[in-house]
């Protein structure tokens, strides 16, 4: 109880999910949206921030309520909390970044079924105090966001020749304009996102031998 707010233990909760306990590449949670929203960087970034906010606050709320929720109906209670937060995020996105909200379309709603949320609530918030749970939520949101940004960076650069909507590969290089370059159409399609995640896992595990599965 007497832990300082930013003790070493709490900081670890914040940094571990970014690398050695990453929700996507190590815990295998929240893959569906990682595939669907990473064609361009901007929606991926907005999605990552939305997920971080929802994870942090749902962790906080469930952790505050953890001693009063009957075990048998916990899933429904958790889903109601998540759904309410997602509706809030959806309304805020519609109000302030309408164009991105339109691009994300159903995937903001599908945050409700993002396994990161449920996984963290079941595995962490139900058994820990509110502040560590909140930090854990932020940390997992960050870990999710890092992977999303990396995947969308490569998919946008190689698939559309732009970064964050700005053109990187000049128009005159393209074959249609008499140049030599062509976008890789595969990058836009979902299977390529899977293969990119596979490659990221490969790189991460060759750097961190402890994660290798036997």
């Amino acid at each position, binding site marked *: 109880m007497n832990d300082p707010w930013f003790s070493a233990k709490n900081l670890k909760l914040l940094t571990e999910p970014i690398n050695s306990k990453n929700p996507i*590449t*190590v815990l*295998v*949670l*929240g*893959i*569906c949206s990682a*595939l*669907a929203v990473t064609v361009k960087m901007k929606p991926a970034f907005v999605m990552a921030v939305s997920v971080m906010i929802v994870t942090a606050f749902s962790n906080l709320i469930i952790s505050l309520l953890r001693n009063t929720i009957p075990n*048998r*109906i916990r*899933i*429904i209670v958790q*889903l*109601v909390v998540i*759904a309410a937060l997602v*509706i809030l995020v959806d309304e805020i996105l519609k109000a302030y970044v309408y164009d991105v909200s339109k691009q994300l379309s*159903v995937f903001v*709603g*599908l945050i*409700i*079924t*993002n*396994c990161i*949320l*449920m*996984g963290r609530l*079941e*595995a962490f918030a139900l058994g820990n105090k509110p502040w560590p749970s909140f930090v854990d939520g932020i940390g997992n949101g960050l870990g999710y966001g890092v992977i999303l940004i990396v995947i969308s960076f490569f998919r946008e650069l190689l698939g559309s020749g732009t970064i964050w909507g700005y053109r990187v590969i000049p128009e005159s290089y393209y074959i249609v304009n008499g140049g030599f370059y062509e976008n890789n159409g595969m990058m836009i*399609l*979902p*299977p*390529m*996102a*899977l*293969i990119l*995640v*596979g*490659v990221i*896992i*490969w*790189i*991460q*595990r*060759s750097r961190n*031998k402890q*994660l*290798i*599965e*036997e």
Partner: protein
Amino acid sequence: MENLINIFIRSVFIDNMIFAYFLGMCSYLAVSKTVKTSTGLGVAVIFVMIVTVPVNYLLNKYLLLPGALTWLDESFATLDLSFLSFIMFIAVIASIVQLVEMVVEKYSPSLYNALGIFLPLIAVNCAILGGSLFMMEREYETVTEATVFGFGSGVGWFLAIVGIAAIREKLKYSNIPKPLRGLGIAFILTGLMGIAFMTFMGIKL
């Protein structure tokens, strides 16, 4: 009858939940280490799909759609509650998953232990919510059609997870670079399977 077979074939192969829409990836990757547990999870998903899709279909038709409440009173003819569909569907799904969890815990404790956290996670399996949302989007005419669609989607998901589990069991004997073992190669395999399944997308029965 022909129509029902058509819906079934479409939902199993052409609109496959995993390879065409990439829904339900989390449990698909995490529980596909052995054929036995993945069969268990696949059957659980089929069961939840068969129950939730028709229930959500009826709720949508008689409670949420514009004018759906006229069976209650003529004055509700203009009422449109479809904005509530998300929260309604997820509540139905969550309660049915809780029910399945209790049944499995009682009758098959070994399966219950093997599935672990992924049984409650069926509630947030995107394939299940996706099934209900596609059912709404494609506007099936009868409850039978909706049930067949739910069954077909479940079977498609089942086939995909059993397929990858079988491949992963064989992979134990192959010499993969160490950091790629396990999850990494599973992702790349799914990507390749997805490219193969993209060939089904153009087929129309």
